[in-house]
């Protein structure tokens, strides 16, 4: 069961990518090709095999609660595409947009 152009559009929207219809058709086809390829994993027996999310297995890597000075406001804002005083500025937010 492959992706339709509409499915791919939903995926793109979620990733904040906007494609033209033409691009979307191409992306859909490439996505379906890739999915067909990776679908070979379905044949591998992974019964009882734990997932490996990381090459190392050590735990509890942390630091002490010691504050350290970070960047100056100028350094923090130096690459800002738009700023207002010491704030980053963005265009208006449309109410109801996704928020955590």
């Amino acid at each position, binding site marked *: 069961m492959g992706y339709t152009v509409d499915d791919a559009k939903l995926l793109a929207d979620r990733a904040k*990518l906007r494609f033209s219809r033409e691009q979307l058709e191409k992306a859909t086809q490439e996505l379906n090709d890739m999915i067909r390829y990776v679908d070979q994993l379905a044949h591998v027996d992974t019964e009882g095999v734990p997932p490996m999310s990381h090459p190392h297995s050590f735990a509890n890597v942390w630091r002490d609660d010691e504050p350290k000075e970070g960047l100056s406001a100028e350094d923090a804002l130096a690459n800002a595409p738009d700023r207002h005083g010491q704030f980053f500025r963005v*265009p208006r937010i449309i109410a109801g947009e996704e928020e955590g």
Partner: protein
Amino acid sequence: MSENVLDLSVHELRRKLLQGQVTAADMVDAALKRIEALDGAIGAFITVDAEGARVAAEKVDRMVTEAVRSGDEKALPPLAGIPVALKDNICTRGLRTTASSRILESFVPPYSATVVEKLQSAGAIVVGKTNLDEFAMGSTTESSAFHTTRNPWDLERVPGGSSGGSAAAVAAGMASAAVGTDTGGSVRLPSAFCGTVGLKPTYARVSRYGVISYGSSLDCVGPIAGNVLDCAIMLGVMAGLDPRDATSSPEPVPDYVESARSGLDGLQGVRIGVPAEFFAPGIASGVRETVERTLHRLEEAGAELVDVSLPHVEYSVAVYYLVATAEASSNLARYDGVRYGLRAEGKDDVGSTIAASRTEGFGQEVQRRILLGSHALSAGNYAAYFDKAMRVRTLIRRDIEAALEKCDCFVSPTSSTTAFKIGEVRDPLAMYLQDIYTIVANLAGVPAISVPCGLHQGLPVGFQVFGPMFGEPTLFRVAAAVEQASAGEMRRPKLEVM
């Protein structure tokens, strides 16, 4: 062109520096001249920092004078005055860092990656930032948003990728050594195509702090050098625990140079695994012959060849593309044009602005991978794709552990072919399959090195050695033996301007 001091190795340059036969300024000048002469044709660099390099060289030369006067040569750090090139996905304070992407075209980091700080405090001089596939996603350096890097051995061919600029810079003598990143083979493949020595260290051996993430559980930072000893010197400087990278390893850093030197004394007692799956049909015949000839020579040098098997390796490309793209889709979410980077004009709300910025800022390959990654992570697909891939990843790792019980290291060609023509591979999936020999090391986390073992039709062939976790000493030893065994066939690339 007159003789280039950068034709000398890092260890030779150090001797000359201490003897007063060469200065850091000479080395930097040589690098900058070579860049000026050649890089128009090769395109290894995105940004060259001539001024910064000259200032740094003056400082090093004062240190040299002091060290020589006081007779304390050990006080001189190991890479004093050595011109190095950094892949442009490694952040450098005050020096533009782009990841070869439009979205970061004007980004100037207010901080340096830990590996940069380590190299600089070891006296290395950053001459510039090298080209890569956008966000390191590619195997040819063709997906750079800025330009395609050409292979110094044949300008019609790709240098490999994604660290193509770094490998090309070293191969063409525009830097003594370089740093690359390797998520699925991105240090080793260009090293094979450009005839350099490239190491993907054990995962977390080198800090990733300040290195632009692609696939966080796969990304490794590794050295690219003109020879095995230089590669070992570089790793010795780059490796170590970093309090800013929670995944970096506390394992002590051994003396890699000594390991590399020991390879010149033969390989008695070394068991080298030969995985059947890596010598199956599909390897270009010239590549196969060159690699097999090298294997035979290693046997003559005292190594014992052992047959091993990696039954799940056939799934590695599928596992890799799910894990890497999933992690990438999340890692690349920060590029939204809010705090830095490209912001699209003309949209009056923030949601559209973010989407337009990302669509304008990312190239096709990056967008393709973000989509695949988002697919793998969607709640409805997680079990069948991402989780499944992580379980097969466990099986691949177990294969490698099982193989390494029978041998000290195992080998393969780095690539099934030598460098191919620019534009030759167009199909994304065919391109992904270029990485079939290198990916397993990233999936398992183990180190692997690519070392040139000869030429086929005038192009370098890479020989790859894999070892156990933190097995870099073994890799350097075997790689040094490969280098020694192939010395008769290897040379530098002939560039008409050189």
